[in-house]
């Protein structure tokens, strides 16, 4: 089935038959969560009081992994010459997983306390200046996740613009995550991109563990590519490694598609489309409503044409700006018939021929009267 923009996020945490598993696990999960909340508090305090040294930070990130049940598998080797790693976006704790194993730092717009941020391996994007970063901690590579936000991993989003020029050598990383036993979606979309998704985090506390797989792909050299070509190459490398499609959508489009009402997302039924081809100015909603009653394309068309079913016409596309456009369109249109449209094709044909003859005859008469011609003898 073709991937569409609304299939890139999961609206429900549960998919399919795992609700039963969820209920069975619920008591255990609550105990685990209570324990982990205590652990999180310890982590919180520890992050505030302990000095910001690398050994301490390693300890804290291990503790954070325990707290959130994050288990990380790394495949492939990190290229020590790469200072920029580019990865797909899976969840709010990608940065923790990468920081714990690869020692990276990620950029986020989340407003979280700085000590907490450093435990999660993130830095506030607004305060981040690349040069400053490298003078402070030259050994720490930066992890970029240019998708901008998480999806359910069925496709790779378009990359955002870069907040600073990228170097000539970049290592792509493909991240996948799974939750054994519970199989709960790691991320549920919310509208705020710049806020730490606390609900997602809470679910991390509750699930026994979330297994991240970080696949370090061969580093890419820029060669002669411009920025766009280089980015496309990275994106393709990650998509290939994940075996998903590199989609043409950006994060904005995904969240917009999700916000749209379900009716707008669904294509109109074929019968309604056929009516609309004939009557382009009748709103789709009215067509669908009338079709429900008539269940016939032809009857519905007749209803609209003869004014049996009223409708508000869709305003015409602006042709030329004219002063008279201030006139409001009539609310409901019920055309007052001035002619007769016979049911039989033969009668219609006859009446059409008659009308033509009559029209010419009348016009001729008018012309003769107006110009005072004397042509009576010719007729």
């Amino acid at each position: 089935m073709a991937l569409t923009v609304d299939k890139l996020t999961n609206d429900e945490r549960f998919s399919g038959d795992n609700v039963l598993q969820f209920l069975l696990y619920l008591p255990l999960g609550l105990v685990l969560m209570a324990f982990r909340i205590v652990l999180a508090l310890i982590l919180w305090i520890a992050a505030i009081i302990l000095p910001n040294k690398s050994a301490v930070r390693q300890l804290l990130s291990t503790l954070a992994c325990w707290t959130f049940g994050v288990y990380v598998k790394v495949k492939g080797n990190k290229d020590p010459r790469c200072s920029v790693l580019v990865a797909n976006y899976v969840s709010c704790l990608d940065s923790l997983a990468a920081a714990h194993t690869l020692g990276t730092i990620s950029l986020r717009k989340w407003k979280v306390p700085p000590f907490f941020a450093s435990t999660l391996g993130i830095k506030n994007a607004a305060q981040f200046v690349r040069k400053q970063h490298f003078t402070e901690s030259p050994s720490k590579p930066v992890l970029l996740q240019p998708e901008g936000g998480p999806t359910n991993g069925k496709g790779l989003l378009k990359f955002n613009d870069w907040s600073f020029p990228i170097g000539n050598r970049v290592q792509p990383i493909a991240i996948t995550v799974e939750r054994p036993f519970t199989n709960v979606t790691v991320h549920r979309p919310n509208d705020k991109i710049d806020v730490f998704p606390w609900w997602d985090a809470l679910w991390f506390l509750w699930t026994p563990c979330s297994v991240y797989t970080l696949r370090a792909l061969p580093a890419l050299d820029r060669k002669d590519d411009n920025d766009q070509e280089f980015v496309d190459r990275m994106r393709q490398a990650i998509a290939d490694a994940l075996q998903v499609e590199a989609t043409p959508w950006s994060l904005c489009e995904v969240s917009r598609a999700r916000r749209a009402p379900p009716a707008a997302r669904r294509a109109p039924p074929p019968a309604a489309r056929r009516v609309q081809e004939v009557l382009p100015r009748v709103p789709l909603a009215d067509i669908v409503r009338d079709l429900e009653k008539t269940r016939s394309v032809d009857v519905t068309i007749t209803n609209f044409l003869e004014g049996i079913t009223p409708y508000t016409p869709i305003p015409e596309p602006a042709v030329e700006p004219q002063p008279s456009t201030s006139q409001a369109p009539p609310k409901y249109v019920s055309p007052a018939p001035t002619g007769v449209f016979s049911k039989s094709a033969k009668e219609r044909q006859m009446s059409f021929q008659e009308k033509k003859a009559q029209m010419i005859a009348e016009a001729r008469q008018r012309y003769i009267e107006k110009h005072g011609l004397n042509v009576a003898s010719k007729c």
Partner: protein
Amino acid sequence: MMAGSALRRLMAEYKQLTVNPPEGIIAGPVNEENFFEWEALITGPEGTCFEGGIFPAKLVFPPDYPLSPPKMQFICEMFHPNIYADGRVCISILHAPGDDPMGYESSAERWSPVQSVEKILLSVVSMLAEPNDESGANVDAAKMWREDREQFNKIAERLVRKTLGLPPPE
């Protein structure tokens, strides 16, 4: 399938034009055996040199109507800047956006499925009233319209009389 929806749309338009005919215009299929060929009679607009004439024209619809526009051709003798010598009408509403033989039309006034036979015919009426002398469908007519209006009006009068079966003025 495609022709089916074209047929349904044409039927609907025919009905609409019959039940609510615009003033001075009638149109319909020449023969209902073939719904894709119509005949229209257009009255020359009042206060113009074409006043009073009844001009017959032929409309031929493509099978993918209303996605593509119909073709329109006058079947009487015409002399007008926007009508070719063979009677074919050159106005923007009959051109799909994209094909723009003259390169001056804005796409807003082009053919699209929301247009209709009625709108085409009304556009033709206003074209008769106000020729666009920049479009050179008939260069001689355009030149005469610009430079010798009196002569143009004379020709128009002769044509009007011809459509009504009246002898040309002395």
